[in-house]
């Protein structure tokens, strides 16, 4: 990987200009790709209830708005989220494996995953062992992913690389390959809990890895960017990178996700502006 080159490519793609119908389609697509997330120590059933409601009907006054892809919560709130979302298409994703640090024994991590799966999680967002990765124990990172995949059952596995701790693009690419070879259904940038979260160049590098993996294996692995994506402009830039790196096949919630919370309202505001021509205000939409 050449850092300057990757960053230059990402910056160039960021200058694409999406107008009119393209923008409308892209905004709706982005809404449908959101993993509406709450991962706080202060999370309560009440908080999760409002989040799930927002996930089903992002804009209470407009039923043309698609539902988001999933809500993402800690394992102990999975059952509650499933309950609220019963009958909707919105999936429940759960972080697991001693999220966000991953600093626990494999047994504890597997138990964490089993709990979440038993509670009904459709998707498991695991973290890789960055300590092992950065000390060169790639086999250990790989084995752990394989083990987690084995206990996921039908649940989809998203593997969080925590790119903000891997630092270099070479590491990001290598970690992407380890995760994909280990059985990841998705590779995901970040926990949202460290200083640097998703960046456009990191997403580019991961998408390139996903593309190359698909060419070799025929398997399509998804990509989830998480943390720090707050504006529609940011989101559309990611969609452009997806479009021009792996192509339209990935332009679906099955293969691309945004892990975010505040992004959704900005998408809704832009969406309304595109339709009505007038700028909307934040209070037009629920604050959840």
């Amino acid at each position, binding site marked *: 990987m050449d850092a300057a*080159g990757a960053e230059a490519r990402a910056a160039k793609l960021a200058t*694409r*200009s999406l107008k009119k119908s*393209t923008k409308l389609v892209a905004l709706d697509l982005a809404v449908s790709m959101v993993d509406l997330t709450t991962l706080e120590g202060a999370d309560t059933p009440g908080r999760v209830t409002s989040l799930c409601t927002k996930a089903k009907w992002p804009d209470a006054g407009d039923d043309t708005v698609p539902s988001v892809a999933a809500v993402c919560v800690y394992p102990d709130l999975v059952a509650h989220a499933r309950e609220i979302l019963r009958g909707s298409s919105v999936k429940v994703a759960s972080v697991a494996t001693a999220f966000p640090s991953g600093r626990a024994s494999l047994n504890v991590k597997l138990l964490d995953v089993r709990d979440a799966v038993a509670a009904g999680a459709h998707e498991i967002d695991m973290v890789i062992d960055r300590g092992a990765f950065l000390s060169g124990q790639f086999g250990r990172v790989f084995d752990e992913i394989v083990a987690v995949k084995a206990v996921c059952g039908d649940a989809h596995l998203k593997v969080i690389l925590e790119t903000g701790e891997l630092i270099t693009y070479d590491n990001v690419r290598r970690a992407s390959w380890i995760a994909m070879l280990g059985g990841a259904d998705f590779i995901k940038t970040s926990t949202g809990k460290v200083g640097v979260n998703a960046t456009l160049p990191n997403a580019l590098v991961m998408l390139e890895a996903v*593309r190359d993996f698909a060419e070799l294996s025929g398997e399509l692995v998804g990509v989830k960017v998480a943390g720090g994506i707050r504006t529609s402009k940011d989101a559309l830039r990611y969609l452009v990178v997806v*479009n021009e790196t792996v*192509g*339209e*096949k990935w332009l679906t919630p099955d293969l691309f996700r945004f892990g975010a919370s505040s992004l959704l309202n900005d998408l809704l505001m832009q969406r309304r502006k595109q339709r009505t021509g007038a700028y909307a205000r934040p209070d037009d939409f629920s604050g959840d």
Partner: protein
Amino acid sequence: MAGELSSSLGAMVYDPAPESRATARLRESYGLFIDGEFTDPDRHSSFPTLNPANEEVLAHVAQASAADVDRAVASARRAHATVWSKMSGAERSKYLFRIARLIQERARELAVVETLDNGKAIRESRDVDIPLAAAHFFYYAGWADKLDFAGFGPRPKSLGVAGQIIPWNFPLLMAAWKLAPALATGNTCVLKPAETTPLSALVLAEILQQAELPPGVVNIVTGDGSAGAALVEHGDVDKIAFTGSTDVGRMIQQSVASSHKHLTLELGGKGANIVFEDAPVDEMIEGIIDGIFFNQGHVCCAGSRLLVQESIADDVMRRLIRRVEQLRVGDPLDKNTDVGAINSAAQLARITELTQFGEMEGATRYTSSCALPEKGYWFAPTVFADVSQSHRIAREEIFGPVLSVLTFRTPEEAIAKANNTNYGLACGVWSEKGSRTLWVAERLRAGVIWANTYNRFDPTSPFGGVRESGFGREGGRHGLEAYLDV
């Protein structure tokens, strides 16, 4: 699988996102900029300048005669003797800073003018040509009062009147490359823009007026080659700076051989972009694309010969063709366009002819399946595989969006092939092994070597060729030498 992937690439359709043509604020006709004023040409003759993307007339521009060139030179001589050579470097510096700022202020207008007149994508005129032109004036502004420290001895003198002839591929940027160092060092200028792309220089003339640059310090004479020839042959010009083809450069060098004119030449090239098996793959593919399709390949330093290590040649070709297929070709004013129009019918004919030779000589042609507009001058991005060194498309400068791919086995062979040309402007090297990159860079006969990047320009970085790519440098401290009597 691979086929499916490539067919799906970039399939999200982008609605047109055109920059407004009205931003250009073009006049119907332009005179010659002599002695600080737009004046009618001696013979009242003019010619239309076209938008190569649709063949519409943009404006009428004056055709300078030898008498007009003489007026311009006389004005420059007067300005040199009475104003510019007497002014302190610090004051000259402030004029250049002013010009730089004005270019920034009118950046969008200039970008649109450039795109209309040249056919290049607005993304490039907006993000490359115009910002770099401003940066060039900024850089040389700072030199004007520091020439004692430039390493050419104390109080280096200006040459006098500089005749500057620029090409059509980067019209404003080339004007900036010529004018900024010449003015910083105390010369006055007569600039001859290319026949097919005079407009941005004429907007620059308006900017010079707004900057209140003293009359005659810069004169701009538009016209065809005869105006350039009149400038080259003029007896009272001290310096000729030319950017263009090697053939014309050769004629100019011959023409000034019996005069005392100083000369610098930036001529053609057939740059080799060398890819080693340990190159950073995706960045390298982008670099190859930038190397040959930037500015429709109308770049003297284009990486028009791709030299790929044989061990990865198939993979590189596959990825390259997939990427070429993704290039958005079309309306240059659309912000999402990657590749714009060919600058002129003549250039299109030359590209077409040379690519026909490529096929006749047995190279394997791949051309993007992109749709081309019906009107205007267009050429779809093209890659030739299985090219050998004896093919014309591997030897002659095509100056268009056409890449010739050759292979090599060892670093030594790569260098031998890269240097197997009479040109020597630029080369690229792609590898993650620093020691080998530097080893290769030492052995390449080229004025500019890009390692893990391509087609980068900066006012602080000297640019120019060796051998038949010309002599003299533009940019950096080295660029001052071309305009100082040292």
